[in-house]
């Protein structure tokens, strides 16, 4: 795809040069050298090298804060996604965080010969089946458990999701050889790997014959919903677990025990601005008896990003975005920060691990996945 095609596809030529994107961009706030407006301008002037060899191309968080307010309706994150593919062709790539393990794993998983041992976290209390119409997409959580030197909490969220589904009478199909959804590959420009991963997932899902897929990870959900249809056929109903829970609660109500917490909810970009799911998670939280939900200064459409996307270009700027978000959460007086994205949790937890002399402001707050909050309240007594 040439720069010209990208401009046509993402309607970059509608740019009014107003600079709202740069004003809203969480990266520009800390890195004045980065400007979405200038990026687009370079593209429109045809300065391809200024675009592809710009290291900041990989700094974009693809959080859609810019596009949500763009008067010209330019799809800047999509523009970035495609421009990164151009940059990758030119041999440029972002700085991969965590030794690039996440990206390497995705590339290795795209190999057809892989047979993974990805279900070892399954414990006796969790019931899965091979016959159900409903599938639960686990995603990268089993890997996340071992990549970071702090507790990522990703696998606990998966267990909690299964517990919730079991409680609702669903024993979902969990595929032993599903691959990474390819989200990070697509957003770092590696379209070929993404296509291979998508094709593999589509094939095994077809073989499993399921009619509905439930996700606890918003990135997987977004990728299946928005990006897979461009490459493969997934003939299933897709649902995020917060949507599933909100439906269940509205239908017949679930029996929750009391939760004595004051919480605030952080909208993940993928679930919020990408897919417009703001209300369902809040309905789920509101359904828990005894809980108090307070909103942060920036919430819903105005929610701030957690600071890194696709594990590239994680730098001091990302850290500042995170610290700001955590301070905002603390300012609400809440004791727990609820989110429904494993990666947001990882990034927040990472920001909290910095201790010692130069640790900066106190950002310690308990971070928890929505599904953990719900699973704890589902009647087995040990809720806090």
């Amino acid at each position, binding site marked *: 795809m040439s720069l010209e095609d990208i401009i046509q596809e993402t309607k970059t030529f509608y740019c009014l040069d107003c600079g709202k994107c740069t004003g809203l961009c969480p990266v520009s706030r800390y890195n004045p050298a980065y400007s979405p407006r200038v990026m687009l301008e370079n593209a429109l002037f045809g300065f391809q090298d200024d675009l592809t060899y710009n290291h900041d191309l990989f700094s974009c968080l693809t959080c859609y804060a810019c596009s949500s307010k763009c008067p010209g309706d330019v799809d800047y994150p999509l523009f970035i996604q495609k421009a990164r593919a151009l940059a990758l062709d030119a041999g440029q790539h972002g700085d991969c965080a965590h*030794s*690039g*393990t996440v990206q390497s794993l995705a*590339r290795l998983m795209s190999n057809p*010969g892989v047979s993974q*041992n990805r279900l070892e976290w399954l414990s006796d209390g969790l019931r899965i089946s091979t016959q159900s119409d409903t599938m639960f997409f686990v995603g990268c959580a089993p*890997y996340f458990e071992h990549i970071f030197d702090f507790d990522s909490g990703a696998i606990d969220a998966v267990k909690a999701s299964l517990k919730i589904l079991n409680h609702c009478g669903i024993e979902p199909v969990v595929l032993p050889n599903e691959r990474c959804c390819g989200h990070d590959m697509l957003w770092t420009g590696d379209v070929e790997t993404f296509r291979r991963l998508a094709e593999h997932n589509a094939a095994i899902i077809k073989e499993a014959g399921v009619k509905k897929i439930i996700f606890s990870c918003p990135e997987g959900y977004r990728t299946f919903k928005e990006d897979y249809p461009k490459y493969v056929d997934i003939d299933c109903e897709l649902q995020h677990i917060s949507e599933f829970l909100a439906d269940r609660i509205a239908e017949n109500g679930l029996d929750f025990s009391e939760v004595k917490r004051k919480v605030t909810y952080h909208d993940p970009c993928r679930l919020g601005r990408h897919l417009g799911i703001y209300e369902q998670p809040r309905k789920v939280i509101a359904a828990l008896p005894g809980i108090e939900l307070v909103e942060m200064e920036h919430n819903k459409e105005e929610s701030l990003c957690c600071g890194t996307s696709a594990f590239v270009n994680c730098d001091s700027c990302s850290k500042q975005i995170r610290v700001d978000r955590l301070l905002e959460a603390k300012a609400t007086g809440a004791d727990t920060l609820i989110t429904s994205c494993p990666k947001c949790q990882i990034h927040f937890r990472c920001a909290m691990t910095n201790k010692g002399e130069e640790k900066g402001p106190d950002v310690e707050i308990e971070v928890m996945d929505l599904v953990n909050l719900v699973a704890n309240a589902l009647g087995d007594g040990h809720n806090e």
Partner: protein
Amino acid sequence: MSEFEPSILCFACNWCSYAAADIAGTSRIHYPPNVRLLRVMCSGMVDAEYVMKALEAGFDGVMVAGCHIGDCHYISGNIKAQEMVTRLKKLLHILGLEDERLMLKWIATSEGPIFAETIKEYVEQLKKLGPSPFRKELVT
């Protein structure tokens, strides 16, 4: 069909294992030619990324060789290597790779014969395991 010949990438520490390989060479100790040595200044500088890249490139086995614990030229680099390997092995296990595909071995400068022996054993082990699922035919 000819017998499967595994390819191995060995990250060898400049201060011990690489010197050990040198000793093995100058002492004319034979060891299989399946290994490619990559000299690094310390086993502690071998990042998980390097190992993953080696596997992506199609090596059947990756070996990280450093100084014995307590002997590191930079005091604690080998402890870093040990932590990296322990964590990475868990990831590779989930990915479906056998434990032996990544090996950590301490070889001191004087242990040339041990270096040769280690490579011999490793090649045998990998022959039993068969090719890696990511194997590509490398130029030999």
